[in-house]
């Protein structure tokens, strides 16, 4: 991948990632994250991992992000306080700690001498056939275990999200809050 293109994609990814964690409207957060995912998919394709790049866009942006949007709309969540409000100490500590972590990782990765060499790859590197050959020979057991994991996830999600017959919408009363206490109960979740 040429360097100006990489610089553009990297800047876009960082801006969109900050947008993901800093915006107040949840829909904007999810859309920012979708932008990060598409951006990373393009980076994968630039690295030769074409199949994984397309899978990233189809599975992540097409399925998981839609699931997020669906849940946000289902819950009818209002925009929250964003990064403002409560727990200033933790936020300050978190920002400093994360900056230190980034600096450390940055220094380690950026100064690793072997990572500076650029190696040419085979023309079919990252194609569907090459990926499938590794996936269905060396990693066959892990692949089959994955289907078991997805089955367990489906059953678990349904068991967690369904409402039992006769169960009331609210089990515990919400914590006493000045503003929330007066508002009438919201429309029940289907």
């Amino acid at each position, binding site marked *: 991948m040429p360097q100006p293109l990489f610089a553009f994609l990297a800047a876009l990814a960082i801006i969109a*990632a900050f947008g993901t964690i800093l915006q107040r409207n949840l829909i904007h957060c999810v859309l920012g994250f979708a932008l990060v995912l598409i951006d990373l998919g393009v980076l994968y394709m630039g690295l030769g991992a074409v199949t994984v790049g397309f899978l990233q866009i189809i*599975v992540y942006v097409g399925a*998981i992000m839609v699931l997020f949007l669906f849940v946000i709309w289902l*819950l009818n969540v209002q925009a929250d306080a964003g990064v403002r409000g409560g727990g200033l100490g*933790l*936020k300050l500590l978190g920002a400093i700690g994360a900056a230190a972590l980034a600096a450390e990782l940055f220094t380690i990765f950026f100064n690793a001498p072997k990572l500076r060499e650029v190696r040419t790859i085979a023309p079919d590197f990252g194609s569907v056939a090459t990926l499938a050959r590794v996936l269905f020979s060396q990693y066959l057991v892990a692949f089959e275990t994955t289907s078991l994991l997805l089955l367990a996830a489906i059953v678990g999600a349904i068991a967690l999200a369904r409402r039992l017959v006769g169960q009331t919408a609210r089990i*515990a009363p919400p914590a006493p809050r000045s503003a929330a206490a007066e508002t009438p109960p919201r429309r029940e979740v289907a």
Partner: protein
Amino acid sequence: MTPISYYMALSAILFAIGVVGVLVRRNVIVMFLAIELMLNAVNLAFVALGRRIGSMDGQVIVFFVMTVAAAEAAVGLAIIIAMFRNRETVDADELNLLRW
């Protein structure tokens, strides 16, 4: 050509942004998105290093990480739905039933 170390640096920055997101936001859905952001930062490192050593293993691992992320999203969002149904909030600070 861009050296692989640039990709690793981008991966580190994205991971740190994800850490900040989990720590500074109290909204459970945004915290969840930040965790997904960290997963994707590590995926980028896998793909870049796999490209460096000319092996497909990194991409296969990314495939598995995507599967686990999908399962995690399904279960996590179901937990959020159950939590919203019981407490009518998605604020992590309000879930203080077990706090001493």
